[in-house]
């Protein structure tokens, strides 16, 4: 099992690097992040045993990422809407 996950991680890394050299416009970022998230999930689920852990562990692990999204989402909410009201400056 661990070896399989390990292989998947290596393949994922290869794919990330490969994809980075192909110009896909904004898709590059999406693919890059998607692959990184898949890799991270593999590590969390298998190497960090969350797959076999209690619900509480799931909740705790998710909470960290969820709060990160709050931080990112709300802050970007400011940056993306700056200057949108007429007459105000960026």
């Amino acid at each position, binding site marked *: 099992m661990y070896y399989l996950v390990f292989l998947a991680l290596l393949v994922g890394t290869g794919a990330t690097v490969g994809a980075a050299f192909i110009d896909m416009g904004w898709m590059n970022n999406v693919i890059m992040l998607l692959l990184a998230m898949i890799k991270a999930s593999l590590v969390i689920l298998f190497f960090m045993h969350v797959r076999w852990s209690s619900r509480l562990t799931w909740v705790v692990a998710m909470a960290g990422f969820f709060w990160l999204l709050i*931080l990112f989402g*709300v*802050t970007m909410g*400011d940056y993306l*809407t700056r200057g949108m009201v007429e007459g105000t400056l960026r």
Partner: protein
Amino acid sequence: METLNYINNGHGLGSWLLTRDHKRIALLYLASITAFFFLGGMFAFVIRLELLTPAGDLVSSDTYNKLFTMHGVVMVFFFLIPSIPAVLGNFLIPIMIGAKDLAFPRINLLSWYIYVLGGLFTLVAALSGGVDTGWTFYTPYSTAAANSHVITAALGIFITGFSSILTGLNFIVTVHRMRAPGLTWFRLPLFVWSLYATSLIFILGTPVIAITVLLVAAERTLHMGIFDPALGGDPVLFQHLFWFYSHPAVYIMILPAMGVISEIVQAFSRKNIFGYSFVAFSSLAIAIIGFLVWGHHIFVAGQSVYAGMLFSILSFVVAVPSAIKVFNWTATIYNGSVSFDSPMLYAFGFLGLFTIGGLTGLFLAAMGLDIHVHDTYFVVAHFHYIMVGGAIMGYLGGLHYWWPKISGRLYPEPWAKFAALMVFVGFNLTFFPQFVLGYLGMPRRYHAYPEEFQVLNVASTLGATVLAAGYLLPMIYFTWSIFRGAKAPADPWGARGLEWEIPSPPPTENFLVTPIVTHGTHQYAPSKEVGHV
């Protein structure tokens, strides 16, 4: 021979400094926090003296700037944030949940040492000349312009941050894993609920301030330019990151006090709380929604208008759970058996002052109005109403309530009543005029001010004198009680709860036999098991 308890079980400095007993660690915190409180209070007093006259004549403007910075830093990071959690929480959580200790006693001791180390950094910063950035450390002033000891102070905050994190971690794990048999979540004392919610904020918020102040230090030392406008950096990003922690941190300061009030109100009206689950869940709601409102500190700082609106509406939403609590406390007293012992007086004080402080928070959350009152004394009055009028009242109330348990001694009740009265009167005299000053437009952090503001400032300084005396009194009679006070029985108030079932002061391992819990706390009415809403 005296019966063995946690105080006399082991003597000498070593037995205290190396203890892993949560109760002894609580006392270590009590001592250090009190020291910082008086230090911060001294700073405040000099501030008030300076503001007696419009001209900046007592101290230089640089000194003044350092005074309010050190006052804010000490009071927030070294007094109020650790106050109730690290003293009362440390002492009571294991007892209230029927455990022998916190989950990680060594880490508990470690967090005290970390706190002390952080405190030392701050003292060094203060003694070697001080910091003058304001407790908010706004860039680029803090990174590029200030030439005071910013790095030392920032590191002090960074370090104590880890103390908070470890305390929060310990509480969370303890509440999840160490509850006595039968102690379901909905039988937990509300104090435990509120500290659980507080711990969530410790865990989720503190790391962000840690990295933020670290970046400020890095920018100063290594000339990396994360917030530097010259590199396209945005000073407002610092403010986002700072308030992402520091707004939730204000709930770190108030939630534990709310927990204390929940306990006191029940104990002194001999009645279980009205709407237990509303009070419990409102703590969680405050902790969680509290993370979504930070931008109300920067309405006029150049963030987008739409972001401002989001933060504004959520700030109003987060006020509702606080309102729920206040109403439930009030309803709890109805049909109770109300006594007027000193803890209850503090609780009354809390209720009134927190209500005013909280409602004036709504003034600030209303964007159009905040334009005018932002960075004026109105804000200063708002937060002192909540932090001094609310949180410290809660802290003092809790100390008075549990002091017999902690020390095993009774303090002189008439003096305690008198002190409570002095604090209340002095407090209002100090900070009420500041609302008026703020609306008149007196900016905060002003060393000198136009003459027409003087009368109100004089009133405020007078009040601060009364307040200082009010704070000195408990210090005196608590100390006195340790040596001269009558021995306290296990349950001096006729209150209910696991902490009142064990001797005062408790034995080292709290419980001889792990208790089996069959109902919630504060069940006074003799008859049936009381259901919860």
